[in-house]
């Protein structure tokens, strides 16, 4: 309910300023609904070429050139599309060993990725190795809970980024996994890991109240969930302990879901958690439909998965 009141108040005060003009564009437009498409990948791990026909597990699947044509056709259908990656871009094929991630970043730039978060394997050539490849990335790295202040990456990752597509404002913030015990300290150096739950409270407040986003997305490399350690922070844990996030795009656990998971957040409101396996085998596609408020019945968002 608060969300609705907030939107009404904002619109009302905006209208008061221009009262007398009555020339508000919303009166004349016939547009009844808007669609935002979010495309996403995770844990591509330097898989640039498709798996061969003889591969035991994923024959003939994946491949950046095929992903490019798929993304192109989706963008042609709906130009109001964002393309995001949830980390672990590096490591997994000799392309990484030979070129250190240069080709991965160049291709993601050609595919016009809008943002990516940082996975643990993105530190595999050290934080200096990640830094060295940044000139090849024409997209932003989004990470709110890695404090890079005392590292070479200082100021080079944004805690969040906002995008406006067809008048809908989308806020994206990034979260990474705890590096201690997972990555050699010599690799991540003075990167400080901050508590994801606390950071999420800050991020959702900023994106909702200050940035006034219509849609909030968390780009996470924390892992889908940990069955043997259910207390460990994961996407499912964060989803249930946070509010105002519409979608968590996950990575790290290479989880293949048959469909996105619907989770009740701390306010009991439904939201989505998704992850699309690994190696560029799948592309996630989530469509958000916005309607004029009079067409909406109370809080009921219908989620079709």
């Amino acid at each position: 309910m608060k969300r609705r009141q907030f939107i009404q108040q904002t619109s009302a005060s905006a209208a008061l300023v221009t009262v007398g003009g009555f020339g508000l564009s919303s009166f004349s437009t016939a547009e009844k609904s808007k669609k935002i498409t979010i495309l996403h990948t995770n844990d591509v791990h330097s898989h640039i070429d498709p798996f061969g026909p003889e591969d035991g597990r994923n024959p003939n699947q994946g491949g950046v050139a095929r992903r490019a044509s798929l993304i192109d056709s989706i963008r042609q259908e709906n130009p109001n599309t964002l393309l995001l990656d949830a980390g672990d871009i590096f490591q997994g094929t000799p392309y990484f060993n030979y070129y250190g991630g240069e080709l991965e970043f160049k291709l993601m730039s050609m595919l016009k990725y809008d943002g990516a978060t940082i996975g643990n394997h993105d530190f595999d050539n050290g934080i200096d190795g990640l830094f060295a490849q940044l000139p090849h990335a024409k997209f932003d790295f989004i990470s709110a809970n890695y404090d890079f202040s005392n590292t070479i990456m200082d100021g080079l990752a944004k805690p969040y980024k906002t995008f406006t597509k067809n008048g809908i404002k989308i806020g994206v913030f990034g979260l990474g996994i705890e590096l201690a015990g997972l990555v050699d300290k010599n690799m991540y150096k003075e990167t400080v890991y901050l508590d994801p739950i606390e950071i999420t409270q800050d991020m959702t407040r900023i994106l909702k109240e200050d940035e006034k986003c219509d849609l909030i997305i968390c780009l996470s490399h924390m892992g889908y969930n940990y069955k043997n350690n259910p207390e460990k922070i994961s996407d499912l844990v964060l989803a249930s302990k946070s509010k105002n996030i519409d979608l968590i795009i996950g990575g790290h656990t290479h989880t293949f879901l048959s469909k996105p998971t619907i989770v009740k957040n701390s306010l009991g409101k439904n939201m989505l958690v998704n992850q699309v396996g690994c190696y560029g085998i799948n592309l996630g596609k989530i469509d958000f439909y916005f309607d004029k408020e009079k067409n909406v019945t109370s809080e009921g968002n219908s989620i079709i998965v």
Partner: protein
Amino acid sequence: MKSQHLLIVLIAFLLFNCKQDAWQLHRIQGAQININDTLQPDADIEAFIKPYREHVNRDLDSMLSYAPETYSKSDGEFNTAIGNLFADAVYEQSNPVFLKRTGKNIDMVLLNHGGIRAIISKGPVTARTAFEIMPFENSIVVVGIKGSQVNELVKYLSKAKRAHPISKLHVVLNKDYEILEADISGVVIDTSKTYYVATNDYLYSGGDHMTFFQPEESLDVLDYKIRNALLDYFKTKDTINPVIDNRFIKLNK
């Protein structure tokens, strides 16, 4: 009265207006699209990748050495030709690095059987061979441990009953898998002496339940990946000739 009336109209308008103005999320639809050979590859992307792919493949497939036979980690019970090559290569390549850094020699090498991820096929040995048998990024570390811990290591090997790759260590078991002999380069293990054991960072951290590396007397991280040690080793050998020997055996007595 009149102004009050106007105000109501104005408020009514504002309410109506804001209802019109606000966009509200009302439906979410999720799908997953499989990337497969039904999709036409993007020609520009394909053309961009091509020179990188050709360079990598040319390099990966260039011959570094020659294998007169096919070697598999299932060839032997307690030691295998490929495992012996693995451990000997790590010794040969990393001992000069360790000696230069510390003035000391590596006493022995221990790796894990599970760390050999592929066979070496008869024919040309290439960089691709090294990537296949060692796809992981593990690095060589040299751990200084007391002889008493080396004895724990030997006990581990006797219980594991697997051909974990070793070099310079010699272990003989009896028919009941009890330790008959254990020595390093022919000298019996001294429990109070410090031995320098080359292994990988995964095993040092307790991987494969190898809990005997910690607490350590010293730790030297060589910044040398196992795969790179194999690549460098292959480059020095015209033909590899690994054999099953008596470094780790079980007697029937």
